[in-house]
């Protein structure tokens, strides 16, 4: 980032702490008046070293570590991880388990897309849309909590299948909720396509031409909004996606409005898939016991997470019970390059909505951790030392803090 910028331009740091960004990412924006000339992303603020940790954990424990890479696409991460390990083991999970795993993936796409629609509404100052979409999203969250016991980190998958089953009573509840959700979101789609203030902020904003999208290998809804019909579930089908009837949505107006409507249409597509899965749910066990010893080998699995293509590469050396190398490539990292393209030439007021356009999941992107570091240059603390320090301080000061508050 050359700091010797020309006279008429100003350098505006957007982030890492900024009301528009829910997660810490920094963009050094060079703006000339209201027009953005150049933007340099700086990532790594919530960098937690999942890949390094995964190398020191057994296969079973990594499943629960990997689930916490991202709050909104936790089932995608855990599902892909278990799928990769199952490929290493060269085993097949029972069909009912496969169906339920895909069901949770699609349910998570619903809750991730409705969350994003709300955040996008908030970025353009339309808080009412935020309130409406997040209110309807609660339906999906309640289903996921009923199904797996947790609203976010469901812990639904296990190496060899799925941990919980779907009872008939749950099936009816899900189907009823799907109808209500579809009605509500069809209403929002009609209204959004008519509201001039919303369209004013979305149409022809943050253009990503089809050729640049392909050149920079963008992924997921961002790519599909630029007119490319690329979806892992169709190109590289895994699990039961080659049996489920669904079609890939793509708009070719390459701007933010396209990204909004691609995600809304995918929302309806997922609802159809969920209905199909629930109606064709085979019976039988949901879980098959997996052998403890993972044979030597390597495997790559790709999954269409709500934000785009998620890839897991695991190599096991066959001897020890923890993987030799786990590589996670999350969709946001692929789209960061295209943000730079979209920001050039846009208005300063559009920067937050363009950054939100790719539905960035920053904690996904920064998954490699580093040890905590004290500000003092000389001494670097490891996490054991950090825990001891916090424990001692906690014991010493906390009594004082509590008494202070209750003394009055």
């Amino acid at each position, binding site marked *: 980032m050359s700091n010797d910028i020309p006279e008429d331009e100003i350098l505006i740091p957007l982030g890492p702490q900024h009301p528009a960004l829910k997660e810490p990412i920094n963009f050094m924006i060079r703006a000339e008046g209201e027009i953005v000339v150049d933007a340099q992303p700086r*990532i*790594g603020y919530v*960098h937690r*070293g999942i*890949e*390094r940790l995964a190398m020191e954990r057994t296969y079973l424990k990594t499943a629960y570590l990997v689930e916490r890479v991202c709050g909104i696409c936790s089932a995608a991460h855990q599902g892909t991880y278990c*799928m990769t390990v*199952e*490929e290493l083991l060269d085993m*097949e999970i029972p*069909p009912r388990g*496969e169906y339920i795993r895909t069901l949770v993936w699609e349910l998570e796409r619903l809750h991730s897309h409705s969350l994003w629609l709300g955040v996008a509404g908030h970025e353009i100052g339309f808080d009412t849309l935020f309130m409406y979409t997040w209110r309807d999203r609660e339906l999906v969250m309640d289903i996921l909590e009923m199904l797996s016991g947790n609203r976010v980190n469901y812990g639904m998958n296990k190496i060899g299948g799925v941990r919980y089953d779907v009872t008939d009573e749950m099936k009816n509840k899900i189907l009823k909720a799907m109808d209500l959700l579809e009605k509500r979101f069809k209403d929002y789609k009609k209204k959004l396509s008519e509201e001039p203030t919303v369209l004013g902020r979305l149409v022809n904003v943050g253009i990503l031409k089809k050729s640049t999208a*392909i*050149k*920079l*290998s963008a992924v997921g809804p961002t790519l599909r909004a630029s007119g490319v019909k*690329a979806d892992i579930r169709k*190109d*590289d*089908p*895994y*699990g*039961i996606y*080659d049996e489920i009837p669904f079609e890939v949505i793509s708009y070719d107006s390459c701007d933010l409005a396209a990204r909004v409507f691609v995600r809304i249409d995918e929302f309806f597509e997922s609802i159809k898939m969920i209905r199909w899965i629930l109606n064709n749910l085979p019976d039988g066990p949901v879980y098959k016991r997996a052998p403890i010893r993972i044979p030597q080998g*390597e*495997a*790559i699995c*790709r999954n269409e997470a709500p934000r785009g*293509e998620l*890839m897991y*590469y695991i*190599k096991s050396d066959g001897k020890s019970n923890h993987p*030799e*190398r786990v*590589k996670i*490539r999350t969709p946001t*990292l*692929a789209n*960061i*390059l295209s943000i730079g393209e979209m920001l050039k030439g846009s208005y300063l007021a559009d920067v937050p909505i363009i950054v939100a356009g790719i539905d960035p999941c920053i904690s996904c992107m*920064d998954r*490699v951790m*580093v*040890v905590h*570091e004290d500000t003092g*240059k000389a*001494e*670097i603390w*490891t996490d*054991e*030392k950090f825990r001891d320090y916090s424990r001692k301080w906690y014991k010493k000061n906390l009594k004082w803090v509590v008494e202070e508050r209750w003394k009055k």
Partner: protein
Amino acid sequence: MSDDKVVQNIETEKQLLNELKEKFGDKILDSSYVKRHRRVFVDVKNNAYRDVITYMRDNWDAIHITTITGMDTGESFILMYHIFAKKHKVVFTVRFTIPRDNPVVKTITDILPGANLYEREVYDMFGIKFEGHPNLKRLLLPEDWPEGVYPLRKDFKREMGGMKNE
């Protein structure tokens, strides 16, 4: 994966691999194999990977690079370029080893511009320098992370008083 077991038609993948072998002759090592439907691992000599990638990009529309996986096997580094060929819908992993003493490799951002951030990440985590990269800077580690310490290397130790690579 249930359907792969039954169908398992990996003829197309085998043909593509043979096509590469005729084209590049001994540059393609014989340890490359077809793992399963739509997954091909191609081991190459470490000076031929750029031509293989260019060939794949021009003929098989393999412009989409998923990521670059770095790995430290104790005595040498392995770099794996995962590239998705749209025409045949196959994921190719171009893999080659580089010596540990001077880990310098030519960049491929001129062939596949999408690899920009992945090369920076491998540089950050393994210390492998990519010549010709537009702005080869740290990607994920904080600014005050000590120089020369690369967390994903095998000999990365985390004990009291700091981290170092013996």
